[in-house]
């Protein structure tokens, strides 16, 4: 029985519940001392991979993450959820600000080829940069079909039926393996890593690599000009009559006098 080999990409981001604050230099947000966790969409990807393994459709799950030393926490959480081994592509803090989806997709492409995977599962986007690019770029580099915004994945013979969430509703496509899938919110509900599993995860293999091991250079092609808070919400005004409303709108310049 040859089960599918799955690669799942995980990103370590600021926890969704944290109130994000802009850095004083206005070139980013405060990350130090702030709670971080796995990107929620990546958790859904890991969960989907583990479920495929539990259904005996997958035989091995490899998780990978690109970033500084702390990303190992994220990888260990994935191992605790049920992944088999982890690859950490170490990107030092100073280079991390230059790391873009293009680099990540190149790294993941190399890892996917090396590990001879059949499916790459990624979150549809990261909740810190909201790029929504890595999956698509990766599929292009590998020249593999892609099923993005997946809310359901069913294995068929040598292919996958992927139900996608699109603006008009749900679209189901059939894509040949090997393929890239990006997960959307309603694909599944990720499990909590149980404490005994967290302890077992310590024994699972975690290898550290460098971007240069994969022939990828982290060179930034753009520069952050500024990061600002959204404008503070102004208080609304209540008016007593329609005439008064029209008057106020004219006053504010929203209507021609």
């Amino acid at each position: 029985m040859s089960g599918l080999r799955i690669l799942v990409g995980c990103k370590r981001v600021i926890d969704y519940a944290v109130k994000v604050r802009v850095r004083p230099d206005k070139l980013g947000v405060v990350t130090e001392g702030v709670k971080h966790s796995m990107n929620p969409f990546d958790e859904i990807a890991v969960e989907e991979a583990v479920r495929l393994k539990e259904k005996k459709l997958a035989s091995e799950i490899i998780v990978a993450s690109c970033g500084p030393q702390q990303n190992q926490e994220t990888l260990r959480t994935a191992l605790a959820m049920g992944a088999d081994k982890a690859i950490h592509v170490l990107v030092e803090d100073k280079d991390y600000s230059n790391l873009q989806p293009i680099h990540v997709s190149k790294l993941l492409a190399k890892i996917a080829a090396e590990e001879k995977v059949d499916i790459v599962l990624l979150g549809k986007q990261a909740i810190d940069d909201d790029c929504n690019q890595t999956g698509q770029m990766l599929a292009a580099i590998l020249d593999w079909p892609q099923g993005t915004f997946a809310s359901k994945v069913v294995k068929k013979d040598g292919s996958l039926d992927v139900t996608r969430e699109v603006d008009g509703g749900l679209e189901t496509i059939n894509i040949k393996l090997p393929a890239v899938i990006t997960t959307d919110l309603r694909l599944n509900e990720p499990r909590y890593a149980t404490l005994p599993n967290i302890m077992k995860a310590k024994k699972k293999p975690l290898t550290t690599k460098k971007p240069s091991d994969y022939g990828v250079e982290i060179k930034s092609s753009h520069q952050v000009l500024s990061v600002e808070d959204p404008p503070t919400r102004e208080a609304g005004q209540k008016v007593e009559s329609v005439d008064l409303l029209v008057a106020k709108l004219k006053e504010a310049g929203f209507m021609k006098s």
Partner: protein
Amino acid sequence: EMLLFPELDKYEDVEHLNELIAPVERFFTENVDSQSIDIEGEIPKELIRQLGELGLFGQQIPHEYGGLELDATGYARMAEVTAMDASVAVTFAGHQAIGLKGILIAGTREQKEKYLPKLATGEQLAAFCLTEPSSGSDAASIQTRATLSEDGKTFHLNGGKIWITNGGIADVFTVFAKTEVTDEQGNREDKMTAFIVERAFGGITSGKPEDKLGIRGSNTCEVHFDNTPVPIENVLGEVGGGFKIAMNILNSGRFSMGSSGAGMLKKLIGFAAEHAISRTQFKEKLMNFGLIQEKFSTMAVTTYAMESMAYLTALNLDSYVEPDLSVEAAIVKVFSSEGCWNCASESLQVLGGLGYMKTYPYERYLRDARILMIFEGTNEILRLFIAMNCLKYAGKELKEFQKLLRNPLKNPSAMFLFMRKMSSRKPKKVMHLNEELHPTLQHEAWMLEQWTQYLEKAVQKLLRQYGNSIIDEQFHLKRLADMAIDLYAMTACIGRTSRSLCMGLKNNDHEKTMTQLFCKEAVHRLENNFEAIMSGDQSNGDDLRRQIAEKVFTEHGYAASHPLTKNKF
């Protein structure tokens, strides 16, 4: 040596603990509906199953039996998170801190293999059965009996226990009962024995769940044993050795109240602070008013002291083989329970009327906190325990002179010299504590050293004055205990702050400020207690207290004539 705040050996150990904490914290935030647990008075079975799956029922059970094998520090850290829901926290504590702890510390290999695996997953729950209607603090007076059968193979258990946590839902009970023990001389005596009892043995009935003020989701009920057969293989430890086991069990879990209390307070401080920052009255934010600032400073400092003491104790428990930190654990429990009650009340006060409403969690935390001063050894009993220990150590030193003191006329010159020495002894910098610490804490270190010596002085005075009957002088014992509590708290705060300063931890200057305030306030309390001890019962009000209490008991209630009373003529 106590001032060197202990460390987890490696950075990885700290990281590992944090990894374990994260999913639990998340689970509690997302999945535990404390409000409905409080209203329904029950923890849903499904939640218990999920908590078991997470591994939380076997925190201190060894790996080989399916547990997490957390040490004292790990357990304390986890307690900070589980404290988010007091009913769940108490259910855990009833199960593992006391319910199955006996098997862990006194069980044979067979007993461990038989019971621990199912207890670790939460498939079976455990309960600790000691308290009876007429035996609360006076645990040695229990009347539940275990009689040995003719063939010597089975004990039969008869009696009733009350207020048993998990009593209605547990399958495995640690039961304490009186057994007739015959010693080598053939004398028969009733001594306490501990038994592992399965509900399946039969004859066990649980009463209906008690309707409580707080921790309403925790199952508390009566448990009755009607000729319950218990095989002798289920004796825990030795026949007749039950009291010691009970005390060891209770001592071993106590310190975690410090970290669970701190966990709860940190949350409350956060909620209340958000309110104080955003609420405006008299055109100002609440946070700008002095009376509000005072509350937050009190809450923060109390939490800091609680946390510091809890981890100082836990880390030391883990660092030494067979440590006896029962006094320190008792101190942590007394301080934390009272600190939680007071600070929960203060945080409620910050919210004003809103704090009183059930739509906000403050009133629930306050109700949940009230039990802390009562269970696991009432604070009154623990204070006596702490004080007796102070006396024990000082007493040993004074043994020589005690003979003189009992009979001063026998050797008056030695007596005189001793008195001179004792009264003139001003605290000297004997310990040189300040040399071990960060230089900015010199003053606090000196205060600590000085007041430790004053405590010694107070102890000596009491022993001289009362001798062995000091054990009946509870007004004074309380003062000694309070002094010891303040000193241990100061030790923990100073040690921790020194470490933070030396390591350059974030906000360490804030820690220093808190330690400075704590020490200042602690010294005030120490001064008052010392004064009251040294000045004697006629000056410190104790004589008056006794008289007043006596009158209230004679009159069966409040005894003063009503203020409106007039004489007829």
